[in-house]
């Protein structure tokens, strides 16, 4: 089964529900290490995407580009900007196509990861959303079934979050807290875990 704009719309609907639910949790996680706005960023971004979802074009590239713009328009937070950067990268890759195979997902995630790395100038292993994406790209490599791919990505995001939890933060506002962040979940990774779970239909 290949992915099309309908699948994108359905995912957007699930993501909106998930981000509204995680609003407080993400704000709180970000508040402990940063400025406490990550829930706001995600909920606003997803609401904006939700608004344009019914009118999204069948061209997946154009559709993802519109999603990226919705994100940049509602928020200039680090995470919002990185998300938009990732989406634009995927949009460019899918331009002119109305479907996408599950087998392409790993490559798309990896491309997003690289673009976001270039934008944010952070290293892998720095305990950021990049580590989530890296794990997701690796876990989905070679998979061809959509459900299997989504599940593998969700599992990988959670596993990466727990693994990196034990390292100190080195990037963004959390960096200042240094060693104190050992044992704390990176809010951006927590958000990506929630995103991947919602895409996989886990709630």
């Amino acid at each position, binding site marked *: 089964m290949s992915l099309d704009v309908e699948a994108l719309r359905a995912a957007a609907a699930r993501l909106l529900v998930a981000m509204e639910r995680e609003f407080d949790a993400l704000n709180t996680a970000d*508040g402990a290490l940063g*400025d406490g*706005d990550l829930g*706001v960023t995600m909920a606003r971004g997803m609401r904006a995407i939700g608004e344009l979802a019914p009118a999204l074009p069948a061209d997946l590239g154009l559709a993802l580009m519109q999603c990226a713009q919705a994100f*940049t328009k509602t*928020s*200039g937070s680090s995470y919002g900007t990185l998300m938009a950067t990732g989406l634009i990268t995927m949009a460019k890759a899918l331009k002119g196509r109305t479907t996408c195979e599950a087998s392409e997902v790993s490559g798309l995630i990896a491309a997003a990861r690289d673009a976001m790395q270039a934008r944010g100038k952070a290293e892998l292993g720095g305990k950021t959303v990049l580590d989530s994406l890296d794990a997701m790209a690796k876990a989905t490599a070679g998979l061809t079934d959509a459900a299997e791919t989504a599940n593998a990505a969700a599992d990988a995001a959670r596993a990466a979050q727990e693994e990196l939890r034990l390292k100190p933060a080195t990037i963004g*506002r959390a960096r*200042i807290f240094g060693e104190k962040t050992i044992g704390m979940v990176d809010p951006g990774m927590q958000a990506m875990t929630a995103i991947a779970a919602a895409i996989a239909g886990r709630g």
Partner: protein
Amino acid sequence: MKKILNNPVDYVDEMLAGFTAAHPEFYRLHGDSGRVVARATAGKAGKVGIVTGGGSGHLPVFTGYVGPGLLDACAIGDVFASPSAEQMADAIRAADSGAGVLRLYGNYGGDIMNFDMAGDLVEFDDIRCTTVVLADDVASAKPDEADKRRGVAGMVYAFKIAGAAADAGHDLDAVTAVAQKAADACRSVGVALSPCTVPQAGKPTFTIADDEMEMGMGIHGEPGVWRGKLRSADAIAGEMMDRLLDDMPLGAGDRVSVMVNSLGATPPEELYILYRVVKARLDAAGATIVMPLIGRYATSMEMTGVSFTLFKLDEQLETFLKAPCDCAFWSVK
């Protein structure tokens, strides 16, 4: 920490509506994002543009400093959130009058990524951009990692110097160089006694006991160097001056401007009490104070606390500091 507001989602847009209605002689909205403020009367054609951007909640920073002798345009984000890259691109376009644009803003991840992205966007418009990132807060990183420091109240001095250099007709590289020199000559440190509330978050950004203070805290409530019992004004001012002078020693013959800045709720009465110590310390060092700024120049809404900024001058910087400027919050004549 109680706020007077309507729907928190509208805080910034309503603020900007009142802001531009109140001061049409200084500010106008540019473009249709509703989040870009430009000078009411554009600078001279051929003048280098100075653009900034950052989160709301810091008035007069950032938007308030748009005006003659200061900034040309500003992109405004939600409270404590970077504006988007598109808004920044719009601000860059508003600031451009053919001689290129200096992007002058605080060292925060979101702002950097977005201003970089905005630079990519305006490349199509053939606008040449340079960047100076402001990182004056000594409490946020050691001297050997000074490039990781946060930008706080010292940004105001950088705006002033860059604005004056641009108004004086210098070209983009010269304006950028002097702005960088100003940025390098600023050191700030802050202390917070009570938090503020981001409207959309609905609760205070951090909590702190009734008898506690945090030395070195950032303007969004980022962590400082220690938290402990509230000390006397003189002890607080003394420690702040120690930290600043350790980082940038000053001695006989040095000329320096100082800013004693309220983060919001702390009243000018208390700033003056603190200024006694600042002046005594600089007098003792043999340094001369030039144009002290005491008031609310860079705030965090209703946060209680203060910051000190030292700005070490050379002849060029002093000339630009004293050059005329005007906006709704600050003017030099």
